[in-house]
């Protein structure tokens, strides 16, 4: 009697296990399917357009696109103006955000509980939550209206840089906190001045942590569109002047969306943007993994 009931018990446990496993698989599929659907759709619709020329030619005008479609040909040209604009603005944003973010992170790490540090940390956290369009608006008010007197790459970079800042501040502070205190003490005990201990010992030791933060911050802002609409505006030519309007990959996607002749370009541009963002993300993961 007792044996039978125990077998019953085991059977019901096995059943419960199976149900649970089924649910886990189901939810995993629900979680990963959007990304798979997105990528497969992008590849399906975008690969035709994606060629070497796509990377080195400027955007065609709408008449060229219309003619190509009428003849059943691929739309000529590419998005090099957008690629270079994105590179220009992200590099400029990084040149501003990386040093400021790292120095602020070091300050927070060294002054854990001081009120100034607590205030800075809170402001940085709030900044992280500010919608990107609002940052675009602020950059418009400050940079577009008063510094470059017109839409410009600099204004776009400013908005992107502000977005990157809190992420870099956070990752710097967290990375430094994980470095054993005795490494810093050992450096100082050798009579090495603090700033040399920082740049010669602490930052190299935490390098992969800092790098991970930076790569994630970059991958986060590369796809930003809204703040660039209010600041960089866009351009159909290659622009290297930071005081002039500049294109960017996400801005082009938005422009293509608004032009019925350019629909095919949306997919290839999005595919390229997705590849770039994924590359940054995977590199960040790799760097973080190498740390262990």
């Amino acid at each position, binding site marked *: 009697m007792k044996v039978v009931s125990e077998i019953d018990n085991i059977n019901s446990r096995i059943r419960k296990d199976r149900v649970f496993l089924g649910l886990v698989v189901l939810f995993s599929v629900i979680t990963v399917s959007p990304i798979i659907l997105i990528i497969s759709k992008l590849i399906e619709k975008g690969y035709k357009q994606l060629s070497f020329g796509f990377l080195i030619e400027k955007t065609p005008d709408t008449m060229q696109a219309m003619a190509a479609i009428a003849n059943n040909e691929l739309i000529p040209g590419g998005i090099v103006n957008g690629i270079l604009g994105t590179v220009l603005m992200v590099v400029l944003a990084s040149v501003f955000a990386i040093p400021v973010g790292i120095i602020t992170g070091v300050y927070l790490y060294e002054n854990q509980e001081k009120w100034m540090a607590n205030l800075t940390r809170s402001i940085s956290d709030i900044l992280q939550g500010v919608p990107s369009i609002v940052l675009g608006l602020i950059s418009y008010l400050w940079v577009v209206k008063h510094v470059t007197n017109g839409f410009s790459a600099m204004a776009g970079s400013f908005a992107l840089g502000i977005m990157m800042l809190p992420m870099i501040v956070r990752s710097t502070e967290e990375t430094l906190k994980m470095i054993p205190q*005795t*490494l810093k003490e050992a*450096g100082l005990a*050798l*009579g090495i*001045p603090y700033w040399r201990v920082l740049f010669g*010992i602490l930052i190299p030791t935490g390098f992969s942590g800092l790098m991970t933060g930076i790569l994630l911050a970059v991958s986060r802002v590369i796809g930003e569109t809204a703040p660039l609409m209010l600041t960089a505006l866009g351009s159909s030519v290659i622009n290297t002047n930071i005081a002039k309007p500049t294109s960017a990959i996400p801005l082009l996607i938005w422009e293509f969306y608004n032009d019925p002749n350019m629909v095919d370009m949306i997919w290839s541009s999005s595919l390229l943007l997705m590849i770039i963002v994924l590359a940054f993300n995977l590199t960040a993961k790799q760097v973080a993994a190498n740390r262990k």
Partner: protein
Amino acid sequence: MNTNILQVKDPILSIENLSVAYDKNVAVKDVSVGIKKNNVTAIMGPSGCGKSTLLRALNRLHELYENIHTTGTVTLNGEDIFKMSPIKLRRKTGMVFQRPNPFPTMSIYDNVIAGYKLNGISQKKQERDEIVERSLRDVALWDEVKDSLTKKGTFLSGGQQQRLCIARALAFNPEIILLDEPTSALDPVATSKIEDLLITLKETYTIIMVTHNMSQAARISDYSLFMYLGELVEYGKTKNMFTNPQDRRTEEYLTGKFG
């Protein structure tokens, strides 16, 4: 005057009325003691009695933390250490920590020369090579690592890492070496290597070592301080202290009644 405290003539390091507090919690209370040159002086006492706190006052490491307050005077060769620049003081006092802590991103070579390189002292390669070789020979590590100087210091065994850290502290030719339980994370073989090393190093350097291992103090130290609850209870020749302790608390500690 406390008669259990040996008075040392011409000490290299003279500590007077030194007190150290963490916020309001006084961890070292009014310690006065003179340290003899070219000897090994052990700081003994039960855990939490203030040994590390005393040691870390001697290279002003406490100044990194705002909640630590130090009073009293310490002179090194007659010069007030609190009036020196901390950088100058720390080059005259090497420090070795409880756990080996080579700089993880640096090679063995760079670890030894770190004090020079990171101080921005420019040298010829040959000069650096000489310093690295001399320091590694001093800690009997040269023969073990001379073919792998470019490998990371963290690849070495624990005992080798600790000897590397001693070499790093010796590279600047300090007057004094401060060691805080340098063998507590090591196995007995590595421990005895370091003990032998310290005995030879005292010919060139003055060594102050915290240990909570009484037999270690007995084996290698010439003089011993016994601390209890932040106070210096007894100071004298190690031999005398072990055979004929003056204070009841020293005796109880040495006979294993507490600690």
